[in-house]
């Protein structure tokens, strides 16, 4: 089923290879940036992928890339399709799709705040969403270290004892290793 849809769209939109390794009914496909909007419109209006499940980003810092994932769902055929879009990490500007799915505006607001990916034209995208008074780099980027930030902000209580969970679990679970 997924293969048929992919074959219909593959050549028109120069899609990457179909990745069906994870589970039945779920596939991921790479996409080029200029085809994002036509593919989404085609999937929504023709192929029945009417439900935008989520829109999120993955930080591949070693490749200097952000991966935007658009997950769509076709309820009738019980198919989930993830579109992967790669953005340059240093010039992270995405394309807003809030006119296709109004709810995407919320996701884009979160990505703007948590990854620093700009979505020009998306409503209220520059307003503070979750964080308040945040001056550091966007926290979901890989180079932001939450433990270091926490230790440089707050002090631990004196007399706090930590038992390394790794050692403890090793004793309990794998005493022979």
């Amino acid at each position, binding site marked *: 089923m997924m293969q048929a849809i992919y074959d219909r769209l593959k050549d028109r939109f120069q899609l990457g290879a179909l990745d069906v390794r994870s589970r039945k009914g779920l596939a991921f496909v790479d996409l080029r940036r200029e085809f994002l909007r036509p593919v989404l419109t085609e999937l929504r209006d023709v192929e029945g992928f009417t439900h935008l499940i989520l829109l999120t980003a993955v930080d591949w810092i070693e490749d200097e890339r952000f991966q935007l994932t658009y997950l769509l769902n076709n309820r009738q055929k019980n198919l989930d399709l993830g579109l992967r879009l790669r953005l340059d990490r240093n010039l992270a500007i995405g394309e807003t799709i809030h006119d296709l799915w109004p709810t995407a505006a919320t996701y884009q607001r979160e990505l703007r705040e948590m990854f620093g990916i700009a979505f020009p034209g998306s409503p209220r995208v520059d307003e503070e969403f979750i964080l308040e008074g*945040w*001056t550091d780099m966007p926290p979901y980027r890989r180079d932001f270290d939450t433990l*270091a930030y926490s230790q440089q902000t707050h002090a631990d209580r004196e007399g706090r004892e930590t038992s390394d969970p790794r050692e403890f679990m090793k004793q309990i679970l794998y005493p022979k290793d």
Partner: protein
Amino acid sequence: MKHMDPNFRKDTKTEFPQREELKPRKVTTPDGQVIDIEPLQDYFCQEPPKVHQKSYFKIVEDFYNWCRAESLWILAFGTGCGAIEMRPLMTPRFDAYRYGIQWRATPRQANLLMISGYLSVKTLKRAIRTYEQMQGPKYVVGLGSCTINGGMYWDSYNTIKKLEEYLPVDLYIAGCMPRPEALLAGFMELKKKIKAGNAEGANKYAEKFDWYKANQKAVIKDWDMPDYNW
């Protein structure tokens, strides 16, 4: 658990820009008057809190303390996940009302601020404001391990670790999350403390006001309210 990045340095230089709606401006009222507005000013009072003396007679103070202990009004402000165990307390299974514990919806009428779990920095700001609006003597109870030392969220960038650096805490109830029975036991401990006259958090807050404010401002970068807001 991944190791910490030793090269990471927190950005301490960037100042948070003042919000547009908080800048002083001129406003034309509906009847044509032009008035200056400074949103950061509190028009009633900005003076720091005062230390309130106890009653002159010890027996009166003891009686008052007994009454305060037997009539704890909790502010219905669920700051974190611990709030979910507050609800069983109001209902048939545990019924805290029989111990004189009631819930009030407004900080003006409440005496006890339950910090029910971790505080994110955004909520900390509201919790401070709420605490300052309450009328003394007032008490703070920290609920859950995350108020004691970060608990589950010890490495999170957005939650505070030690609550007593920001508010004068009378009592901690440990656990993640504490059971209703633990909460009831905690209330009983708090009552003992109040009856013994040791729960003077409001006065402590007034005495060490500068220290508390410095701590609060260290984590809340966009401090855009008066220093003391009653």
